[in-house]
């Protein structure tokens, strides 16, 4: 059979599959749309990252005020909170920028735009990683060279606090290093190659 025969069969095939037809029914679509904007936001990696950052920054500040003695250790915790907030807010800004752009462009424009947005995302993640690494180094220097508490009880809390903050910095930096943004960008580059761009 020639390709034209296949093409004719394709155009005549029934696509009104029950579950799909339900999904694309105009009136049901509208009721779906009223709830899906929230669902779309809930699925967003950037929004969950922002919530995580905000909560952990609050915990870091709160815990340091209660547990960590006043001084260098406490400052390290606050630096961590600031880094988390910067990371969360930056991610959210990128998300909002993307949210405002509907997918109505031609495929070439759309993929090119997605690629440039992912490039911005990768740049931001790199900045975030460097920020974490820089602040972790600063916290380490402060922990080593800063004044140590004289009181043995305070000394123990201070040492524990410093170890915890360094672990926290490393954990967040490691999480960022596992990001899939670079893979996604490479994939879009392959699409652009397929499009001859």
């Amino acid at each position, binding site marked *: 059979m020639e390709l034209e025969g296949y093409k004719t069969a394709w155009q005549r*095939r029934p696509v009104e599959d029950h579950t799909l037809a339900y999904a694309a029914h105009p009136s049901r679509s509208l009721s779906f749309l009223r709830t899906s904007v929230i669902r779309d936001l809930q699925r967003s990696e950037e929004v969950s990252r922002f919530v995580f950052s905000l909560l952990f920054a609050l915990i870091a500040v709160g815990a340091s005020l209660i547990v960590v003695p006043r001084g260098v250790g406490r400052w390290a915790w606050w630096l961590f909170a600031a880094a988390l907030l910067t990371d969360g807010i930056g991610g959210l800004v990128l998300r909002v920028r993307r949210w405002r752009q509907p997918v109505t462009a031609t495929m*070439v424009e*759309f993929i090119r735009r997605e690629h440039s947005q992912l490039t911005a995302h990768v740049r931001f993640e790199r900045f975030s990683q460097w920020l974490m690494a820089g602040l972790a180094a600063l916290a380490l220097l402060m922990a080593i060279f800063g004044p140590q508490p004289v009181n043995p009880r305070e000394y123990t809390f201070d040492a524990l606090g410093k170890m915890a903050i360094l672990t926290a910095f490393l954990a967040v930096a490691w999480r960022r290093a596992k990001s899939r943004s670079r893979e996604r960008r490479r994939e879009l580059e392959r699409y652009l190659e397929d499009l001859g761009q």
Partner: protein
Amino acid sequence: MAGDAAKEARFQEIVAANRRRILAIASSYVRGDEARDLCQEILLQMWRGLDGFEGRSAPSTWVYRVALNTAITYRRKNGRHAEPARMPVATPASEPAAPSSPGNEILILEEFLRSLGPVDHAVFLLYLEDLSYQEISEVTGLTKSHVGVSINRMKKAFTQRYCGR
């Protein structure tokens, strides 16, 4: 409120007129529940983009654009979870399939579409939907000559694989 009602009416009209196209694209990229999710994602993107649609292109061209861009993004994001294509029969290149029923032809076309990258998939799908090179060019943003070259390449690959020599 009147604006919302007008938007809803316009949306309903476009969805009703292009329902088959949306279903065809969603079911060609993914299957089952995932196709339903993709369908709804396409509708969501259409709703969000509707305010920017000024009618400079045909509504069907606009729907194809939104649906294909959404499908490509969906497949990219959910690539690991996408259900594998239903293999109709073992069809090695040396033994071209001999479709005996219309259902088998569709399965073979679906298998071929899924063997293509998302971009080629989109172009070949538009060809199967009987759009002209000019219309495919308007949807994809590729030049007409590029569309022609891509389609000829894919037609040749399909013929070699499934139509024998």
